[in-house]
């Protein structure tokens, strides 16, 4: 913490009278009113956060007139009964799942190794590696997309599954490395010494002690980067070429049609990520803190 030097209220000695005035400056009813206002404000904030989500889910039950599912007509369960009715959309969805699967596996392995190295060891060059990890997440997505496109075009590399996957691995590696690092910060590495003292070799120590302790963090990071990958539009629009992923399909068809299946699939993604996330935080509730 850097800002601890300015001690509260000690910059100027308040006289006793002033102090009394200060406390009474806010009458209790005003304090209560302010407090209630703050709660209402926060509640309004949540309404704002959920407004479009409600629209997405509600409109998955809509039976649109014509090709655009933008105006409410009437309730139907047809869309949920036939979530894969739109062939192009389904194909794109499957492409996104494939990219996300490969990207997450590779990125989780690379990222977890990096965070392990950064958390477990003290060594020269750690600062440089940290910066290298943070940069892809802080650079605007459009610049990342543009730079990868420049590279692929310059190399005459045709764009497709692999160029999309490569770009997704890039931002997922950074994301996994950062989140896992944050999760295992404060880890007590002397536990490994204890295991060694009890006769465990390095591999066994890792398998029996270290890995189980950092696994929940890795799992959560993998899950989040999966949703990052499946959702990515900006970078993918640069690196995809003709390889149309789910967001690209929605964007491409936007002028022609917005089918309710989009809402169904989006609600499904939402539902499954939330379920997995709740499970990953509730089930392994053997929280370790040092």
């Amino acid at each position, binding site marked *: *913490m*850097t800002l601890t030097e300015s001690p*509260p209220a000690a910059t100027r000695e*308040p006289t006793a009278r002033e*102090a009394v005035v200060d*406390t009474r400056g806010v009458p209790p009813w005003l304090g209560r009113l302010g407090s209630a206002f*703050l709660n209402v*404000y*926060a509640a309004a*904030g*949540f309404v*704002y*956060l959920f407004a*479009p*989500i409600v*629209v*997405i889910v509600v409109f998955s039950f809509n039976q649109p007139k014509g090709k655009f599912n933008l*105006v409410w007509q009437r309730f139907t369960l047809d869309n949920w009964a036939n979530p894969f009715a739109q062939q192009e959309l389904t194909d794109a969805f499957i492409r996104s799942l494939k990219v996300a699967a490969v990207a997450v596996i590779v990125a989780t392995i*690379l990222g977890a190794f*990096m965070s*392990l*190295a950064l*958390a*477990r*060891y*003290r*060594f020269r060059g750690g600062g440089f*590696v940290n910066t290298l*990890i*943070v940069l892809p997440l802080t*650079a*605007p*997505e*459009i*610049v990342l997309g*543009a*730079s*990868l*496109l*420049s590279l692929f*075009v*310059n190399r005459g590399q045709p764009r497709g599954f692999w160029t999309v996957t490569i770009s997704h*691995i*890039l931002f997922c590696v*950074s994301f996994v490395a950062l989140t896992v690092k*944050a999760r295992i910060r404060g*880890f*007590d*590495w002397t536990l490994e010494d204890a295991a060694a003292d009890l006769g465990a070799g390095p591999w066994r120590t890792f398998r029996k002690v270290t890995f189980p302790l950092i696994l929940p963090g890795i799992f959560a990071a993998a899950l989040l980067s999966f*949703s990052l990958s*499946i*959702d990515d539009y900006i970078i993918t*629009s640069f690196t995809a070429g003709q390889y149309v992923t789910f*967001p690209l399909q*929605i*964007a491409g068809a936007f002028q022609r049609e917005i089918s309710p299946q*989009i809402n169904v699939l989006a*609600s499904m993604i*939402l539902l499954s990520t939330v379920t997995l996330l709740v499970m990953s*935080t509730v089930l392994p509730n053997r929280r370790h803190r040092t």
Partner: protein
Amino acid sequence: MAEVGDRGQRRGTWQPWALLSPGVLWLALFFLVPMLTLVRVSLSEQANRFTQEFEFSWRFSNYTDAVSDYAGIFGRSFLYAGLATVLCILIGYPLAYVIAFRGGRYRNLLLGLVVVPFFTSYLIRTIAWRTLLADEGPVVGVLEALHLTSFLDTLGLMENGRLLATWVAVVGGLTYNFLPFMILPIYVALEKIDVRLVDAAKDLYSSAPRAFVKVTLPLSLPGVFAGTLLTFIPASGDFVNAQYLGGPRQTMIGNIVQNLFLVQNRYTSAAAISFILMIIITIAVLVYARFLGTDELAA
């Protein structure tokens, strides 16, 4: 403040690099090399729009042309991103505060609720805002019922009773889409505050608002700082909100880059514009960091 808590950290020579090398190699190959390629392309000459061959020729006119052609759009992008960032602080700070200090045992649940909306697709969320802000949509409907439309027209917040295809819709969309990046770091900073400090201030006869201004607020500034960066940077390069919620007069620099790269095939100018965007953002971040100076970005 990073690794102070890690007991028993090892001193490593080759081991950390063995673990790091695949990831570092990936980042070097697909982050650093592409960035250098981008710079190279931005200084190259493209014979015509139908080839993808570039001749490197220190062509700085790509940059001067970009600035003279798109200065106004650059300005608009940073204005919108700045407005969205301020709005994110105004909405996000109280929200994070309420969750951190009044959430009680529902803290994690409330925090989860902040994140949940962002597990739906970015694009679909933005399209949902179109439905909400449409001329026959609920928001305009309520404003019409309250007879506020002409008043908001004169304030410049609506255009002829419309919200869609106005700057308000674009800034609102940007604010919405980047709000969690503001809330989460502020929450993390607030959560770390020792409540006893605030109590101490009150024991020393500080009023609640004064204790907030003198104790809580300064201690939470690193969170605001990180949140500002995480909001402003992606917002200034965004093109989705301007494309789906704005009209031709809300074009942002992201739309230009995307259009030049993917529609017009004008790679060299597009590369120059992207790089200018990157430079301006870097300078802005450095200047901003000097004022609020922390290195908590990664926290």
